């Protein structure tokens, strides 16, 4: 029976804890809820006075999925999905390869390479946009999805830090054991380390998959022929949002 006082104190603490969490979640989701609610609104343009739409309707979704001359959401979705899949495969491979090489292999140029990677990360990405565009143009890859994939994933090896941090916490004894069993480095990589790295692989896959959906600056610059069927979702959305949220007219 002496457990009871502790129980109520714990109970109160638990309730507060959960109330706090619910509050946080609510704050975090408010704009998303607004987004979803507005998408069901029949009102064209920006409603500034009501949080929830005055008139609920599915008309915006109808408009979205019926391709018209410009807004072709299904095509955009497929384009972006294609690019994202390819991108996530390449990026994950590159990131894991670089992280493994810098964490497990000891070679003379390891530290210099790592320092170089740090230095390269210090330059702002938007600086070299125009040069990347002309490199792609020289390769004939502007206005192609392959070009987009390259832009998003070719330099992904530079983002190896988190994966390397994870690999650093893997016990070296495992590698030693594998070596004693006669496995080559390649074998160790494929059969021992990769199965152990599931959380980091998931993280890398998710973050690299999301990149093409979110970027519109590079996408807009590379897909510049004006053929809207080639666009990715981000270009299309940016175009639409530009018109809907700030009605740029003339």
């Amino acid at each position, binding site marked *: 029976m002496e457990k009871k006082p502790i129980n109520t104190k714990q109970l109160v603490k638990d309730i507060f804890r959960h109330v706090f969490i619910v509050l946080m979640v609510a704050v975090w989701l408010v704009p998303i809820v607004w987004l979803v609610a507005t998408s069901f609104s029949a009102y064209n*343009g920006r409603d*500034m006075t009501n949080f929830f739409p005055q008139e609920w309707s599915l008309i915006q979704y109808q408009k979205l999925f019926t391709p018209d001359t*410009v807004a072709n959401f299904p095509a955009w979705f497929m384009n972006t999905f294609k690019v994202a899949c390819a991108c996530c495969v390449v990026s994950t491979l590159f990131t894991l390869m670089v992280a493994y090489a810098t964490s497990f292999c000891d070679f003379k140029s390891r530290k210099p390479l790592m320092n170089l990677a740090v230095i390269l990360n210090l330059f702002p990405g938007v600086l070299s946009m125009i040069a990347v565009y002309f490199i792609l143009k*020289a390769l004939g890859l502007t206005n192609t999805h392959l070009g987009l994939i390259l832009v998003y994933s070719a330099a992904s090896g530079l983002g190896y830090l988190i994966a390397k941090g994870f690999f650093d916490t893997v016990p070296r004894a495992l590698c030693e054991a594998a070596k004693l069993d006669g496995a080559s480095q390649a074998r160790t990589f494929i059969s021992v380390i990769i199965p152990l790295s599931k959380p980091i692989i998931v993280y890398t896959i998710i973050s690299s998959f999301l990149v093409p959906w979110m970027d519109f600056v590079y996408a807009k610059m590379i897909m510049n022929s004006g053929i809207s069927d080639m666009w990715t979702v981000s270009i299309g959305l940016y175009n639409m949002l530009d018109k809907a949220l700030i009605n*740029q007219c003339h």
Partner: protein
Amino acid sequence: MKKILAMALALVMLFSMAACSSNTPTPSNGSNEGQPGNQGSGETVSLRVWGAEEDQALLKDLVEKFKQAYPDQTFDIQIGVESESKAKDDILTDVTAAADVFAFACDQLPDLVAAGALLKLDENMDAALQNYAKKSLDDVKNENSQGSVGSATLDGSLYAFPFSADGYFMFYDPSVISADQAKSWDTLLDAAQSGGKKVGMTLASGWYLAGFYYGAGFTTALNADGTTSMDWNGTSPSGVTGTQVTQAALKIAAHPAFMPVVDGDSSNQLKSGSLCAIISGCWDSQVAAEKWGEGYMACRLPSFMAGDKEVPGGAVASYKLMGVNAHSKNTGWAMLLAEFLSNEESQVARYTARQLPPTNIAAASDPAVAADKGVVGLADQSENAYLQSAGGKYWDPVKSFGEQIAQGTIKSDDASVQAALDDLVAGVTAPLS
């Protein structure tokens, strides 16, 4: 280490080989290379057109008509989407990858010409035009309104074909404001206040704010080296000082019935129903009709008092132009297409589809077109509509100045206003960095 370098080297060179083969001074722009010397009969002419999103269906029709107008020639014409107000950005990033024919707003003309993106319509073009379309450039110039042709001209040469008038004027709700009250800012604002509504205007914009100064006789000009000259901190030829104009603007902005509108937000403010008058253009005609009924009125901007002189409300005249890419692979045919897309029938078709005021004089005098509220407003304003000529350094400083007026952060005594104007002019006329 050596092997990384070796493999990397091999692959880099492979890529540059690919680049070498595809990199010639005139990169592919989607056309089939034919043998020179044919009068356009054998080969297919490949063209790309860029137009606004709302124009896509219209452009498809017009392109079909173009093909029928020149049956001896086979075409392959692709239509792409490009915002007219942002055309310059995409074109200047890579001129050779831009479309052969594109629509743009006239304020982008100087930049496009400087970058070599617009084909000069000179005697050669004139000859080609006469050869195929049986009309000369002078005919085109005479067919369209003087202001529109002026906006497409730089240093005496024509660089594009005008097809639509795009300036701003004032819409108002006749149930709140009477035609007399709309004539000056003072009466307009008082009437709005008693009606419980507001008057909206964008001040933080080099396009709208300039109207106050141009109306008073001040000017801006684009110099040959790309800098801008501006005289707003002095006295205009009509005897009004820049200080007086600014003080008048400050007074207008401080009035409780005045609502400064964020550039581009006019439609939303109109829809909110809190306005009874707005400085806007044809793009808002439909919204005005929805909000205020079909009886809504369009007229010129109100006048204001600068010192003891009454200054008519000025506005910047703006037009939409159809230009030809100087780096196009088929400049001749591109020019013919551009001319076709902006001739009288096309302008009429455009008006029918989208109620865009034509610049073609004959089309505009058609009774149905002439009765259009947007056309009426533009016509009323045209007496005080000025072509704007300004360089790159003009826009941001003036935008900020307009915002300061809108927020009232400039004190209205003479010294402060003069100082603010001097800062503004210093920024605008600065040499290019």
